[in-house]
């Protein structure tokens, strides 16, 4: 039988330690607060296009994303897309660009086509040209 005072002390210690660890984890941020605040301010001031092109998951390939956005605005929804990628483009980069293109061109299907060297080009494919 553990005395009630000891139980209370143990419960308080455990709850406090758990919450303390959670607070400490939350306090460890990926960016300094000032950088976070200016980042938030920039995004909330920007227009929809600027927000998207500078979003963390997109910004690394902003020029490519801008091309994809232009294509998304002009191509009919029925048309699919072919991403021509040269053999010198790393497989991880090819997959990253394919996913970004798919996101920006949705609902179009983006398939990978052969390219030359370090070529990365988006071209309009025939409508309904989907691989299953």
């Amino acid at each position, binding site marked *: *039988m*553990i005395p*009630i005072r000891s*139980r*209370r002390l*143990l*419960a*308080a210690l*455990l*709850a406090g*330690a*758990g*919450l303390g*660890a*959670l*607070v400490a*984890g*939350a306090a460890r*941020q*990926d960016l300094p607060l000032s950088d*976070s605040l200016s*980042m*938030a301010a920039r*995004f*909330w001031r920007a227009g*929809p296009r600027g*927000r*998207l092109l500078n*979003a*963390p*998951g*997109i910004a690394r390939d902003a020029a490519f994303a801008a091309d994809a956005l232009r294509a998304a605005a002009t191509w009919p*929804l029925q048309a699919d897309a072919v991403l021509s990628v040269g053999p010198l483009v790393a497989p991880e980069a090819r*997959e990253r660009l*394919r*996913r*970004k293109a*798919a*996101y920006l061109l*949705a*609902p*179009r*299907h*983006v398939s990978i086509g052969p390219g030359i060297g370090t070529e990365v080009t988006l071209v309009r494919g025939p409508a309904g040209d*989907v*691989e*299953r």
Partner: protein
Amino acid sequence: MRRHLFVALAAAVLGCGFVSATFLALRQPLSMGDYLAVWGLKARAIHATGELSSVFRVDPAGAFSHPEYPPLWPLLLAGTARLLGRYDELLLALLRPILLALAAGLTFARTRAPLPWRLLAAASLTLLPYFQTAAYTGYAEALLLVLVLAALFLLESRSPTPLTPVVTGLLLAQAALTKQEGVVVLLVAVGLLAAARRLRVAAIVGGLGLGLGVLPWSVFRAAHGVSGLADFAPGSFDPAKVLRALSTLRDLAFLPAVPWLLGAAVLLALSPGVRRERGPLLAGAAAYAALLLASFAFARVDVAWLVTWTWDRLALLPLAALLPALFEAAAEPFETGSEPEGSAPAAP
């Protein structure tokens, strides 16, 4: 005076957790990881076409977008974008604090303890790493969590109405339409209700969950020829995969998890009233974890890869579900006073 201070402190922790999680979510537009490759991709396709079947067109071979994943979160994103008038990844991030507020409110409501402990339970939910990182904003687990916590709130109700099982079934149907883990929650809930001889409630919850959640999406997928693209398949069964999943989990999370597991075990060991009251919840969390682990035996992809990239998100649901029990356990010694050991915590 001390009680007022405790309440103020707990409310401050809750406020800090919520503000911090909200700031991280709203600091930048949705664009990371599975949001881009899975959830947002499908949401943009639905938004552009108004057709659910467009989620299959974007990636018909299932190379990266998991066409088999249920569609409720992309539908919610697309529907919200329609209401907003455009698909804006920054404005859609506002869904995260709304869902977090609901999840925290449900945690507060589910905790049967005095006010400061209920506030601390809600605070701890907002402080979970899932909500304190920008990377997971735009993922589907927050919606799944709200639906499951709402269903648990109803299942745990001490004064259920005739509508309670119906609403619970509808909530779990939506959970099944949000993520595949929702189906596991549904199975566990129905199993525990049946074991408790609440057969009528089990039949209503199970019937609605399966009939309005699992079945429609399975039929829709089959009608579009994507039923064979799941990450899991009966033909891939290999019991050794469970051991590989456990081994990967040990390497990834065992050491950091030990203090948490020990602390939770000690808290519950010292609180016989909560153990008795919360027996079904503890059993449900254990069954859920066991079923998830067992499901890895059917994985079609590399189990170590699957566990590495999903374990922290898979842990969110049982962890959040157990928070009320843990804070009730912490509160119990303060409520028992000079009463005999084993008495239940006082009602809020």
